[in-house]
């Protein structure tokens, strides 16, 4: 295999499985070009009755053949029944060489591993974690997988890099015309916009619901005019696992300390008082705690954020209801309160990856976010961040919205400096998910490192009592505690590609030597 270096010096295949690859050239080096993909032109006369009696009937109608690509969204998270259900049915039909294109997979989807082994699925385009990531690391997939961010997945579908033959869209709330959202029904999950690209660009689009309602279901997040078939099944998933009843703030004193540092940092650099202050925080332990600390400062100083970027939780919703946040722009709801707020509060707005994250657009709002608080598995001395593989080389996580969110004015990475002997700061990350040029500050319990590229931030931090230090110093502290780690050993074979937002390849993951 011919390997070529990209602009970070990472070696990537020139070509893989017959597909020519484009090496990464810089976070914002891409300027588009070409024309978007399209779906087949259909006539409404043929769509007077879209309702099918069963999933089997739908699969028949879609004429699925060997080698096709089928897609799913992951809004039902670890409660999802649909992916396993459909894949099992395809296996029963003796199909083979299918490509699975989910926006993410969860531990509940572990049975997919068997379908990879038995030849039903050749590889995965999109995202994977846990057991499926492990299978990929062990070289179980016949072709190399591609990992993309949420925005990157939208772009790949839109640009025609990822052609979907059949999209299955789990819809907690739908009508027989195909209008759908995730706001009601037993499987209510909040947004379902990760499926927007699938609904616009797939050859065939199936809406699967367990809550068929009379026309019109509104808001029509998925528009009926894009939908081929609608089918009602018994149960889309396990409501308890789709959203949690409550999200809890971490009790870990170390994580709380890191969260407090982030809030104090934002206060110290004085951006909260500036117009358009906004932030992004997910459902991770540190992020949730950060929201609480930030809210305290906002209350004390009488400040307000015009908007915050979800995933939404009770904590974010409470802040909006208290008047500290003007709008929540939401891609995923993580708890019941988030779902109810999206349904009932007009200032809680569902956003899709096109609007929020897609690089090949005439603008997305990721750069309008002032402070994005994100997690990581490794950071290196160049500020490159890895969220995909662990230091032992296993591919265990998808990218999620990570690389898209790094377009924020300040990208903040939070992580304990040492986790069970593993130092978070390494000489060189196992896998580059996002380049150092997009990463501004690293927060740990023992110190905070600002990327030297951000002289403006260092300037604003003068007089701050926070433990600001160089990333080399942080590394030294970590290694002083843990000792110098060895590197895992890999085979030559490339098992996954890490795709940058613009479709270029920033790094690749190799098969683990075990």
């Amino acid at each position, binding site marked *: 295999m011919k390997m070529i270096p990209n602009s970070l010096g990472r070696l990537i295949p020139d070509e893989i499985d017959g597909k020519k690859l484009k090496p990464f050239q810089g976070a914002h080096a891409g300027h588009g070009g070409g024309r978007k993909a399209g779906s087949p032109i259909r006539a409404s006369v043929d769509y007077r009755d879209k309702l099918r009696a069963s999933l089997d009937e739908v699969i028949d109608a879609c004429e699925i053949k060997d080698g096709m690509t089928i897609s799913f969204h992951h809004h039902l998270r670890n409660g999802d029944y649909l992916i396993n259900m459909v894949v099992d049915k395809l296996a029963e039909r003796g199909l083979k060489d299918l490509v699975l294109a989910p926006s993410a997979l969860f531990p509940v989807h572990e049975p997919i591993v068997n379908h990879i082994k038995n030849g039903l699925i050749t590889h995965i385009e999109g995202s994977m974690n846990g057991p499926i990531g492990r299978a990929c690391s062990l070289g179980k997939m016949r072709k190399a997988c591609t990992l993309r961010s949420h925005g990157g997945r939208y772009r790949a579908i839109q640009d025609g890099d990822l052609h979907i033959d059949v999209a299955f869209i789990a819809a907690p709330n739908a009508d027989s015309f195909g209008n759908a959202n995730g706001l009601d029904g037993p499987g209510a999950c909040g947004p379902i916009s990760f499926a927007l690209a699938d609904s616009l660009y797939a050859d065939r689009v199936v809406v699967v619901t367990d809550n068929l309602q009379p026309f019109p279901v509104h808001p029509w997040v998925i528009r009926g005019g894009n939908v081929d078939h609608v089918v009602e099944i018994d149960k889309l998933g396990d409501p308890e696992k789709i959203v949690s009843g409550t999200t809890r703030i971490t009790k870990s004193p170390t994580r709380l300390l890191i969260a407090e540092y982030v809030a104090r940092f934002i206060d110290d650099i004085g951006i909260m008082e500036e117009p358009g202050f906004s932030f992004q925080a997910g459902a991770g332990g540190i992020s949730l705690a950060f929201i609480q600390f930030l809210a305290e400062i906002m209350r004390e100083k009488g400040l307000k954020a015009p908007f915050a970027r979800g995933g939404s939780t009770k904590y974010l919703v409470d802040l909006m209801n208290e008047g500290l946040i003007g709008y929540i722009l939401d891609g995923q709801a993580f708890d019941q309160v988030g779902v109810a707020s999206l349904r009932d509060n007009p200032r809680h707005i569902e956003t899709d990856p096109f609007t929020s994250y897609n690089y090949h657009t005439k603008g997305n709002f990721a750069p309008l976010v002032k402070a994005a608080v994100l997690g990581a598995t490794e950071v290196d001395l160049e500020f490159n961040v890895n969220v995909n593989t662990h230091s032992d080389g296993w591919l265990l996580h998808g990218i999620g919205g990570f690389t898209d969110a790094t377009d924020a004015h300040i990208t903040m990475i939070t992580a304990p400096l040492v*986790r*069970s002997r593993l130092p978070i700061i390494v000489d060189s990350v196992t896998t580059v998910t996002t380049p150092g040029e997009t990463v501004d500050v690293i927060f740990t319990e023992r110190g905070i490192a600002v990327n030297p590229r951000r002289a403006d931030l260092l300037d604003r931090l003068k007089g701050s009592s926070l433990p600001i230090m160089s990333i080399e110093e942080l590394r030294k502290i970590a290694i002083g505690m843990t000792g110098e780690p060895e590197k895992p050993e890999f085979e030559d074979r490339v098992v996954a590609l890490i795709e940058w937002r613009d479709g270029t390849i920033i790094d690749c993951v190799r098969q683990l030597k075990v």
Partner: protein
Amino acid sequence: MSETKEIFVGRSEQKSDLYIRMKKKTSGGIALEMKSSVGAMFGSSIRRTLEETLKALGISDIEIDVDDRGALEYVIQARVEAGIRRLYDVKEPGCLPERKVGVTEPVRDRLRRTRLYLPGNNPDLMMNAGLFGADCVILDLEDSVAPAEKDAARVLVRNSLLSVGFGTTERIVRINPLSTEYGAADIEMVVPAGPDTILIPKCDTADDVKAVEKLIAEAEKKAGIKHKTLLMPLIETAKGSLHAYEIGAASDRIVALCFGAEDFTADIGVERTREGTESFVARSLIVLGAKAAGVQAIDTVFSDVSDEEGLIASTREAMAMGFEGKGVIHPRQIGPIYKVFAPTPERIEYALKVVDAIEEARSKGSGVATIRSKMIDAPIEKRARKILRLAEALGLLGGKKEKKE
């Protein structure tokens, strides 16, 4: 015990710890089986640590199975040593880890608003304990350690005193009472590692303090430690409360008297309440005894971590009674306690004026300082300096620094 004795040491499936099975052998060298959650990065390093520790302890034949969950080097050493001590007589001082923390003379006169309790057998909590701003940490060998693990905790605490940076936090070790089989051994192993202070539980009389002091002095002499390790008697019985003053005055090493509510309520045969009415008199006696002996008084822990309001109320009451600190069982209790102990801006302003007036008077050679023709006597000066010290610790002084005496 026969030669086939098998022992287990460490905590099974706990992060930052390891679990070891060991069995005596008389020949055949070291039979080591190992798995580790961080094996890909630290496998050979862990193996080296295991082998070197066994060698340092003089062991050349043993069967040893290790299940590691990311333990740091000093923890691995502590667990191996504790295991070997269960099987063999070990030549003292055993296998000391690389000293990463220098020996420093303990500071008598310092803030002790918060003392964070850490179970002595849990390495995962020790690693970051110095980061949360507590004035003191207590590495506990007493109530938070099960009898069967006292020996293992003792080695772990010794190793963490040598290896873990707790910053400027005062490092206190709570030993077991001398009336138990563990107390004397705790002192013998821990004091040479240089803790700042020893917390003596269940002090009933001055003799309890003196007995501990004697063993500490012997251990210091043996280890060549020049300074005096400080003492903090913990009073947790009716008898101890009634002897508060003589306990406080029993040794010049004593820096504070502490109250322990759990054992006290058990001792007098009542339930512990949120209001603490049952211990009000005992706590008052401890404050009075401490003040009479010229040492600090420190209140018990507030045990409901999620009840911040209750913690604040309890701390306010403690401060009003004359206590200068509280025990803490979770780092999140630290912030609220500091808020209560923080002096008001008016008091800081006044304290600054007092100190300025005194410095000015002294520079002019006058023994008497006044503010608005009111004389400042020694107690006022003392209180003012204490307030400024507190304010400085809390970062409330801004540019205004306390001038040194």
